[in-house]
């Protein structure tokens, strides 16, 4: 294959460094990183206490990104996310106080607890990479990356993200329980929070932007686009209730590029598509009866399409 670029080497060591904090979850860490590189946003859906926050924090620390955490609650207002203008008496004018959204990496914890109004404030910022309050538009820092978490159970009194909102996330992953060995190490090891505090950033926003640019240059052959289209076409009929949108197709391509780049390659292979497809398409697919076992659906889709 190709010789890995220095950036890819750095990213590889970033994966390893985060892997020392979040044990036994290399694949998920890679997906999260690929998501950043593809300029997308990540939704982690899992039970509490599975390390969602730790992952986000460790990632931010390793990538050298400014990190803000927003805990979504039922009474969260858009201004709590975006910021407010307060009248400054000395200067006799309104001064904007930026909200927590003005950071490189945002952890939006338990987004389904907030009202749709607050959710849409976040989602609009994710989509536009800018914030408009009181008639003024302010750009968000670049890179800008949101990790939102959602608790799948205890849906009473929550506002689960509708499908249209889910589509805004490039990937949705679940962390799941660690395996026995990883759990043992976690139990025996030192405090994760302290470890994160002592982590060395391996990248900085500028090199991450450069990496994002490199990812967009990863080559996609005609044969591979054929494969992507075959996958999309299969998802739109037969066994599947809701097919993949064109946006989903684009997401698949971007994510595959990022995955290939992380593997140190300059071209996308069918394996890259297969690796990212469950995360990219899982929250967009529906079975014939409307059920949504993401992983099973994605694997069924992959198995049913021959690589052209």
């Amino acid at each position, binding site marked *: 294959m190709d010789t890995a670029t220095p950036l890819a080497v750095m990213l590889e060591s970033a994966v390893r460094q985060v892997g020392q904090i979040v044990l036994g979850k290399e694949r998920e860490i890679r997906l999260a990183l690929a998501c950043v590189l593809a300029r997308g946003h990540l939704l982690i859906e899992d039970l509490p206490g599975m390390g969602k926050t730790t992952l986000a924090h460790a990632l931010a620390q390793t990538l050298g990104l400014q990190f803000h955490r927003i805990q979504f609650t039922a009474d969260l207002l858009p201004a709590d996310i975006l910021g407010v203008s307060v009248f400054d008496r000395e200067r006799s004018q309104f001064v904007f106080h930026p909200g927590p959204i003005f950071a490189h990496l945002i952890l939006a914890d338990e987004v389904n607890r907030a009202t749709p109004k607050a959710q849409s404030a976040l989602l609009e910022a994710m989509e536009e990479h800018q914030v408009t309050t009181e008639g003024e538009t302010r750009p968000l820092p670049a890179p800008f990356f949101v990790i939102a978490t959602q608790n799948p159970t205890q849906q009473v009194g929550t506002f689960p993200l509708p499908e249209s909102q889910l589509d805004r996330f490039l990937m949705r992953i679940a962390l799941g329980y660690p395996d026995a060995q990883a759990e043992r190490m976690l139990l025996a090891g030192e405090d994760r929070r302290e470890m994160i505090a002592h982590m060395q950033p391996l990248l900085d926003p500028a090199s991450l932007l450069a990496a994002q640019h490199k990812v967009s240059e990863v080559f996609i*052959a005609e044969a591979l686009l054929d494969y992507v289209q075959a996958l999309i076409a299969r998802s739109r009929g037969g066994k599947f209730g809701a097919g993949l949108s064109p946006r989903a197709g684009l997401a698949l391509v971007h994510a595959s590029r990022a995955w290939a780049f992380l593997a140190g390659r300059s071209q996308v292979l069918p394996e890259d598509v297969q690796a990212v497809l469950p995360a990219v398409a899982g929250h967009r697919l529906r079975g014939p009866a409307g059920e949504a076992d993401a992983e099973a659906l994605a694997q069924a889709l992959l198995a049913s*399409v021959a690589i052209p």
Partner: protein
Amino acid sequence: MASRGFFPPLPAGHWLFAGIVLVLAPHALHLPPWLSALAFAMIAWRWAAAAGRLPLPGKWILLLLLAGSAAGILLQYRTLFGRDAGVAMLTLMLALKLLEMRSYRDALLTVFLGYFLVITHFFYTQDIPLAVYLFAVVLVLSSALVALNHPASARHWRRPLKLSALMLAQAVPVMLLLFVLFPRLGGPLWGMPSDAFSAKSGLSETISPGSISELVQSDAVAFRAQFEDTPPAASSLYWRALVLENFDGRSWGRQRGRQEAQPALETAGKPIAYTLTIEPHDKPWIFALEVPDPQALPPDTFLTRNLQLLANKPMQRLTRLNLSAYLDHRVAADAVPSQLKHALQLPEQGNPQARELALRLRSEAGSDAEVVARALALFREQGYSYTLTPPLLGKNSIDEFLFATRSGFCEHYASAFTFLMRAAGVPARIVAGYQGGEFNPAGGYFIVRQSDAHAWSEVWLEGRGWVRVDPTAAVSASRIQNGIASALSAGEPLPFLLRTNMAWLKQLRQQWDAVSTYWDLWVLGFNQEQQIGLFARLGFGIVSWRELVWGLAIGLGVALGLIAAFTLWPGRRAAPDKVQALYLRFCGKLEKAGLARLPSEGPLDFAQRIRVLRPELADDADALVRRYIALRYGAHATAEMQRLFAAQVRRFRA
């Protein structure tokens, strides 16, 4: 010393040997046998040494061989210089160098010596087959050079050949440009060694019984003639070369000294324009049709009083001349009585019977013209025969021919007739040249060969001037009308091809002659004149050498740019369908071995599975899959990669 010396690693060594043998082989045709044998024995020695069967010769043996070779050449040629001795020397040197090859540098030097020897072949001939052969030799030598310089690429013996063929092919446009555009000088750039012309056949300066009949047995081309309009009839194609006026009793010679004078010439009608392309014959005479237009002589030629057209220098290279001739003419010699007197000169003694016959003719005839007619009637009626193999003649050759043997070739008839005329008091002379020629429809020109050599007479008649009389025509009219092959009986020693009735063979020969004539004219004979003419015809007007140099620079720039663009351009892409078909073939081979690829299994996953299930195949499969990925999913899939991939798939065994 039992050293094996330096022998290049194998493909290079084989190429080197092949190149040396091939470059030396044609020289065996003209080198003395002992010399060829010695050279090839030395090569064989080197070969045996490389195989470890013989030790290489030590320094003293080498010195001995060198001294022996030089002495042998000196004995053979009496010199170490000149064409033949020089080539002999180079041949032995190359063989000796092979025996003395002790380092990588020596091997390179041997190749370059081989290149040099390629050129020496052109001292002997420059025809198309040789040129093609030498191209092949250069290809082989270049392959040796490639293999020597880049051993890594030479794992297979064919690789260096491919590479050198590619390089030479890329050099072809450059070669053509240089050939067409390189400014030619007025004269030759270099001269041939003087001994290069020794063996040219052609008319000699004297004619004696047997001299022409010997020449006629050669089918070598003397010259070619192309008429601008309809060619005249074959019976009037008398190509004059020499006028022979001095008779010593046996042979006829030409008048010495440069008799440049305006002949008293009356012409009628329009001149016939034609072009002669004369093969080098190392003599100054030009085979002009009767009678050349004195006003339109080619440069560097002159006309003598007796109408010989001569060049200022012997013709040592292919010469192309534009001429025009008046077939209808009258040459008077009235103004020069000394010339007429010369045309009556005979030796004091000899051939008494012929003299007697001449006097009888004289007394019976009323006029000179009647003497001529009676003499011709004599030839016609008294059982004379036309043959290439007449009996040998003694001292009184004319008497013996006229009264005893009665069979002879054109020189016998011309000689006897001229003798009779002179003895009868009619001024007469012999003209030697060629008669007729074979029309080549493929090229639209006449080929005149040595076999068309002919001799005839000219007599001076009061009021008519010099008149051509061909006594051979009286004996064998078909010689003049249909050519020599039809005039001689089947047993005569004529060249085979002149006789053949096989139309296709004749046609093939004529087409080949047309091709090689173009080669002679446009490749070998591409001189300053041709170059300027070519550009004038292309509409560039008269080009100067500066314009040619500019054209050359621009042309070379464009050609090299195009070659570079073509070779460096990644544009020639692989065919995706073909690549996939090859990959499926690879998968099919594995499937037969019980390792089927799943439809949705990517190449990397498949390679990984092969590594687990069939570790012994993993390395080949990995390399193959890597190339497949580059071809199918990479950005720079070239046709060359596809070719390599195809070879990998072909070789793969599961």
